[in-house]
């Protein structure tokens, strides 16, 4: 897999999320892209019971790009520990319900159309939590390259071409210390978790 950048796209004051997704889809199709189905990334977070000591949070994420995997990230102080497992891990979490309770009301997901354009893969996601619309996330993957520092300039150029040259594009927080390492699917999941966590802290936006 290649290097992926996840970017927030601001929804203009008097526009809906659906409108923005449609506008961006048109722009991407005009560049010669083909739509290749839909995608979905979701995240559910669990809190450990107080009697287990300090409360810990476990985030469980699924990404339709890796349909056979379940990604779990345990927040432990300043460090995050991740485990990649197969689909059975979801059942395992149910078994653990005595020790970890789901914060159902914060279940959050990003879904929408998926496009392929040359060696790029572009996903336009509407983020919803508890059926309320939170914002738009654009995921761009450049598949031939495996290290972020080599391809960063190219990705920024592509994103600015797509979103307007005035858009400021910074490497995602998660990638900043890993720019020269080989990119793997968990790096995409970390980026989603970062932005999902930020959305959870904001109050709901307008209707979708």
């Amino acid at each position, binding site marked *: *897999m290649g290097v992926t950048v996840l970017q927030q796209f601001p929804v203009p004051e008097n526009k809906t999320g659906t409108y923005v997704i449609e506008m961006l889809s048109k722009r991407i199709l005009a*560049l010669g892209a083909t739509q290749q189905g839909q995608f979905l990334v979701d995240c559910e977070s669990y809190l450990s019971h107080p009697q287990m000591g300090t409360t810990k949070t476990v985030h469980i994420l699924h990404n339709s790009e890796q349909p056979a995997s379940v990604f779990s990230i345990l927040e432990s102080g300043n460090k995050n520990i991740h485990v990649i497992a197969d689909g059975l891990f979801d059942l395992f979490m149910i078994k653990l319900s005595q020790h970890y309770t789901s914060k159902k009301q914060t279940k959050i997901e990003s879904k929408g159309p998926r496009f392929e*354009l*040359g*060696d*790029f893969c572009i996903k336009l996601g509407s983020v919803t939590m508890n059926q309320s619309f939170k914002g738009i996330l654009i995921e761009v993957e*450049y*598949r*031939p*390259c*495996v*290290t972020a*520092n*080599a*391809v960063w*300039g*190219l990705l920024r*150029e*592509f994103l600015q*071409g797509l979103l307007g040259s005035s858009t400021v594009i910074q490497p995602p927080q998660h990638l900043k210390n890993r720019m020269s390492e*080989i990119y793997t699917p968990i790096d995409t999941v970390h980026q989603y978790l970062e932005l999902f966590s930020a959305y959870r802290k904001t109050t709901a936006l307008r209707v979708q």
Partner: protein
Amino acid sequence: MNPSINVEQLNSALTSLRTLRSSVSQVFEALSNGLRADHGEDGKEKFLLELQELLNNVNINLRDLEQTTNGLPIPTGSFNLGNTTYLSQETTQDRQALYTQLVNSYKWTDKVHEYSSFAHSILSQNSLRRSYANSGSTKRRGKLQSNHNVPPGQVDNVINTIDRSYTDMKITISRPYASNAVVQISLGHVLKAVVAFKGLLMEWVMVKGYGETLDLWNESRHNVFRKVTENAHAAMLHFYSPTLPELAVRSFMTWLHSYVNLFSEACKRCGCHLHHTSLLPPAWRDFRTLEPFHDECKQ
């Protein structure tokens, strides 16, 4: 229609072309079948005789073709559609499609004409020095040995020396097909390539991405590496030198090494990473300066 074109002449030229092609494929068929039972006791000699016979046929057919084509008038420019343009006014339903077909084949012949005139001017410069025929003075030719037939140890030496001169390019040699080397190159975290050698001469290159499995025949799934493969073939021909094969290999490897910045360096001409129509990074490297360019920007 152009009155100077004689259809019969054209037909006989096409027929002799077909005969030539089939006689060439007979040569390859006989070669690939090798010795057969019906060659009998001293099969080797009979086989060689048979091959010689077939090659003679090829020669005869080639001469025939040359003769018939020499008789053909050279089309001076594009063809005139003449009366056939009235086909556009055809009212019978089952003939209405004819006009589009006509236009398409017209466009096609026009393109063939254009391409063949380009090809002619390039080939007449003989810029691809694939044979010994005009490789310098007869004096030097006396000392030449065949570079198709170099002992494996010597090939290993040349390649290992190149390998040692780079820290970010790893070259490994294997010999899956008898004595000829197949060389795998991995260049940083950027790309992998496989080069098939015949003696010290490079015969085939395939370039793929870092995470892809490498083999000689399957193309990369990424557009950019398919483009680099295409350009690597051009480079292989450009650096080709029957008299100095070692230099050719070294020049090619130096050129390939310059792809270490394939994704990070912008095009020297337009200053962009991605070309606005192909959406590819600069996948061409200048043979002399090794500077990156988009295919579309290289001239």
